[in-house]
């Protein structure tokens, strides 16, 4: 990019909706945020005003309608980072590195929410803030591993080496994610506090409860992709500005 072209409007990349037609406009950041907001509000309204109160867990069960979708979305973030890691190692394309970093960061933000809401719900329904049961322990390990991802990134200065190490780390750390997800299903129920709510045969919920959960799940997933797209755009702009600054300096 020449110094002259930097000064042109839009030279640092098109505005979010510029030149987008058809389905690309549907995945634009403001559209994704609006759809996420609608779904999340609808999910809350259904959860609090339509879905019945759980007989055994009482009113605190209402935490489930956001807690479970946030947990699924945090694991989705780590899955996206795993895919981006594999793709980076195959292609060495810096865009995959950016995607990996942004999805791990978002995965960790959602993980923080899962831990906080989970502890509150744990105190309400089990009487303890924390228990070293399989799901909680493996999830905590995943969180610590992905915190390590950023420690690793901060310690390597050379860009390509940093991206390669980070991609490798994201691929290896992902081993813990299916373990966390299937811990409640594979291990004996007596050894854990987390119940298995949804199975292949039964949702474990009434129709309205499932509708509230499903809509909240859709909302959280849309919110994740809206934040991810936004973060990716910010990171790309940051890199472009650094490149231009470098060019102007030399």
């Amino acid at each position: 990019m020449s110094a002259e072209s930097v000064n042109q409007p839009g030279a640092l990349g098109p505005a979010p909706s510029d030149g987008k037609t058809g389905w690309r406009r549907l995945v634009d950041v403001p559209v994704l945020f609006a759809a996420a907001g609608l779904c999340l509000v609808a999910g809350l309204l259904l959860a609090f005003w339509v879905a019945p109160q759980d007989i055994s867990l009482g009113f605190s069960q209402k935490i489930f309608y956001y807690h479970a979708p946030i947990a699924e979305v945090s694991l989705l973030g780590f899955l996206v980072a795993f895919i981006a890691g594999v793709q980076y190692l195959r292609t060495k394309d810096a865009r995959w590195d950016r995607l990996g970093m942004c999805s791990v960061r978002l995965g960790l933000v959602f993980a923080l929410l899962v831990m906080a809401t989970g502890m509150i719900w744990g105190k309400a329904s089990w009487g303890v803030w924390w228990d070293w049961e399989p799901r909680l322990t493996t999830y905590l390990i995943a969180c610590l591993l992905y915190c390590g991802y950023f420690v690793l990134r901060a310690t390597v200065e050379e860009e390509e080496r940093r991206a390669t190490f980070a991609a490798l780390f994201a691929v290896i750390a992902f081993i813990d994610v299916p373990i966390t997800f299937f811990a409640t299903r594979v291990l004996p129920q007596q050894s854990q506090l987390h119940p298995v709510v949804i199975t292949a045969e039964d949702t474990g919920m009434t129709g309205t409860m499932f509708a509230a959960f499903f809509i909240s799940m859709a909302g959280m997933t849309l919110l994740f992709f809206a934040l991810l797209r936004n973060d990716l755009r910010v990171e790309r702009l940051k890199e472009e500005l650094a490149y231009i600054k470098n060019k102007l300096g030399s």
Partner: protein
Amino acid sequence: MSLEEGVKYVAAAYGIILAVLVAYSVWSARRVSALEREARLLSTEVERRAKA
């Protein structure tokens, strides 16, 4: 557990969700405005060099 107690836990959980999401959005917005400021500075610098 009584309904009042349940309400406290639920309010705390949803309050934390809202607080974290708002904090993340503010952080993200601050990054965008820092980038915009930097882009404006660069633009001025390019103009200055073009005139010189």
